[in-house]
């Protein structure tokens, strides 16, 4: 047991499955009217998986289409709709919600020693709003979808597109309110509901990252909302502020859009970084190196991330001088990320490393995030960007961060907290196999795209010169392996929920208040509010532990 937490808790004997937990009630009503943050996390999990599946099918169709230089599977209009729905669903209906609404909702109150979030009914409302937004987007998709790209650039989206822009934009608009509510909830929860003794600098780093993420959520998302409203109105009425024929400026749209969308990518990655901090410390049995630096780096990324949006607009006719300012600021925002990578790596030094499945995802994250982050710096250099903007280089860059970084972290976190969520362990051997498959498949899918982009193939085209084919074929091959790597957890997680080995309260011998309750946790998390007296990640007593995880 963690000696730093003085608490009277009902921890049953090792390996016992806690009866009478938050999952005990089985009625539909108890799920649809729940205000329990743990159940809401699970509701979100199912919803985002649904959209991930649709977006993955779109990706698969694109990858098949790209096998041949002249395409053949779909028309160019359909291809445009495929990459649009892939982007819209992945960004707004999978990546942005993923870690905060699933793992964050589940774990945050427990990490704080609280019974629930500050506004549980709002929490449930946010899920319903999310579902409504998703329904609108799905409606748009069913009726033919949108072909503007997930970026909705004007004047195409406002004036010339013949597709269902407004319903798709409305879906994203509505989902945005879900994000805002989650952000408000987390900010207030972290400020107001910490257990006695849990000062800011005793918080787990996952909490710091969720806090920074929530700040971005509440400050950036409203700008997206008003922008989507404006393009919808302009599309309906033919009058607005983005039409150059009427004296408007299409670049103003880009300013408004990217003011949100750049910080949005930090909404996506920061929670992943928080997860990695948890995994690295637990599975090296060591305190994080430079705790305060890592926590403050999250805040720095959140703040600086708002100052760099113009790097998406270097070739848009934005002023060169503004471009220079944005370029310098973009270099600056890489620094706190670098600090984190350094600190994670330094944590590994002289650690007692246990390569469980989460600990395969964690270093994978670090390596892939470094590649993605460095190529981001290439793009931040004005002169380089002129050459590779709108090419596959950009696609490779952001997939390294989003998939290689974010999805990897999500998988790592899901495996790490799975025993807490379900009370059972996933099968360790299959977990490791899937992690390996995704790492290999991912690199094969996306590394060739860096080469393609550098060689000049533009993005969002489904036909290309034949000399590029070998790279496209490699990429599609990689995508099939990646797909297998993602389907495997789907199967074994479902299996393990009923048949997995019983985990007990703390199978990883981790520090952190969430491990001081039974698995699965009771409805109100703790019998009594814990009191925190020591620093986080104190593994000094548990260094040489044997994490016995028999695989099936």
């Amino acid at each position, binding site marked *: 047991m963690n000696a730093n937490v003085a608490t009277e808790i009902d921890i049953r004997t090792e390996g016992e499955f806690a009866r009478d937990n938050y999952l005990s009630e089985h009625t539909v009503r108890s799920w649809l009217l729940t205000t329990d943050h743990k159940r809401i996390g699970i509701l979100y999990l199912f919803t985002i998986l649904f959209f991930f599946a649709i977006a993955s099918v779109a990706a698969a169709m694109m990858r098949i289409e790209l096998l041949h230089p002249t395409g053949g599977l779909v028309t160019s209009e359909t291809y445009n709709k495929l990459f649009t729905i892939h982007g819209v669903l992945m960004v707004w209906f999978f990546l942005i919600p993923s870690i905060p609404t699933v793992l964050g909702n589940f774990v945050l109150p427990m990490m704080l020693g609280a019974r629930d979030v500050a506004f549980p009914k709002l929490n449930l409302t946010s899920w319903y709003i999310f579902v409504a937004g998703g329904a609108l987007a799905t409606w748009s998709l069913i009726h033919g979808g949108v072909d503007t790209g997930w970026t909705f650039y004007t004047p195409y989206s406002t004036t010339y597109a013949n597709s269902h822009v407004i319903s798709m934009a409305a879906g994203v608009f509505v989902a945005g309110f879900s994000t805002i509510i989650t952000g408000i909830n987390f900010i207030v929860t972290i*400020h107001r509901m910490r257990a006695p003794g849990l000062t800011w600098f005793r918080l787990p780093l996952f909490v710091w990252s969720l806090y920074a993420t929530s700040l971005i959520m509440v*400050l950036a998302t409203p*700008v997206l909302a008003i922008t989507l409203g404006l393009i919808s109105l302009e599309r309906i009425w033919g009058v607005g502020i983005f039409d150059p024929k009427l004296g408007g400026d299409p*670049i*103003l749209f880009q*300013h408004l859009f990217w*003011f949100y969308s750049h910080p949005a990518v930090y909404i996506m990655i920061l929670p992943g970084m928080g997860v990695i901090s948890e995994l690295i410390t637990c599975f090296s049995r060591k305190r994080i190196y430079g705790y305060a630096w890592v926590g403050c780096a999250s805040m720095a990324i959140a703040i600086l991330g*708002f*100052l760099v*949006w*113009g790097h998406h607009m270097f070739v848009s*006719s*934005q*002023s*060169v*001088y*503004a471009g220079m*300012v*944005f370029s310098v600021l973009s270099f600056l925002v890489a620094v706190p990320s670098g600090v984190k990578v350094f600190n994670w790596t330094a944590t590994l030094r002289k650690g007692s490393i246990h390569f469980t499945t989460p600990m395969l995802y964690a270093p994978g994250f670090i390596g892939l995030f470094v590649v993605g982050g460095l190529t981001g710096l290439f793009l931040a250099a004005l002169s380089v960007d002129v050459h590779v903007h709108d090419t596959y280089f950009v696609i490779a860059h952001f997939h390294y961060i989003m998939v290689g970084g974010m999805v990897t972290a999500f998988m790592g976190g899901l495996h790490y907290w799975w025993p807490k969520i379900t009370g059972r362990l996933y099968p360790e051997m299959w977990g490791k196999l899937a992690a390996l498959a995704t790492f290999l498949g991912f690199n094969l899918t996306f590394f060739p795209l860096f080469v393609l982009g550098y060689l000049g193939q533009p993005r969002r085209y489904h036909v290309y010169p034949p000399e590029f084919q070998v790279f496209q074929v490699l990429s599609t091959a990689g995508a099939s392996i990646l797909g297998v790597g993602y389907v495997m957890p789907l199967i074994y997680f479902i299996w393990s929920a009923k048949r997995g080995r019983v985990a007990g309260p703390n199978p990883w011998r981790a520090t952190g208040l969430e491990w001081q309750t039974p698995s699965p946790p009771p409805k109100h998390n703790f019998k009594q509010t814990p009191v925190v007296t020591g620093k986080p990640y104190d593994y000094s007593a548990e260094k040489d532990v044997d994490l016995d995880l028999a695989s099936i």
Partner: protein
Amino acid sequence: METTTHPAKTYWKTFAALLLLLALTWSIGYVDLGLFNVIVALAIAITKALLVALFFMHIKGSSRLLRLAATVGVIWLLIMLSLTLGDYLTRGWVPLNH
């Protein structure tokens, strides 16, 4: 952290000040100060907003956290305005290399 309300007089005095500032902004609206019209108008508006925030919204006497929350939105709006205007205002500048 309490936000005790003020005596009723404070609210009426604030209201009087707000009306005065409204009259001021109105009358200056009829005077040609060129570029300064917008600056003065904004300055008066900011003053009125501050009065509402400090007294009606009880920022005066509030905790540091609430005061921070109150200002953060405005600061972020200013970031959005300034960097965007930075683009628009420098578009016509002479290029670096000829």
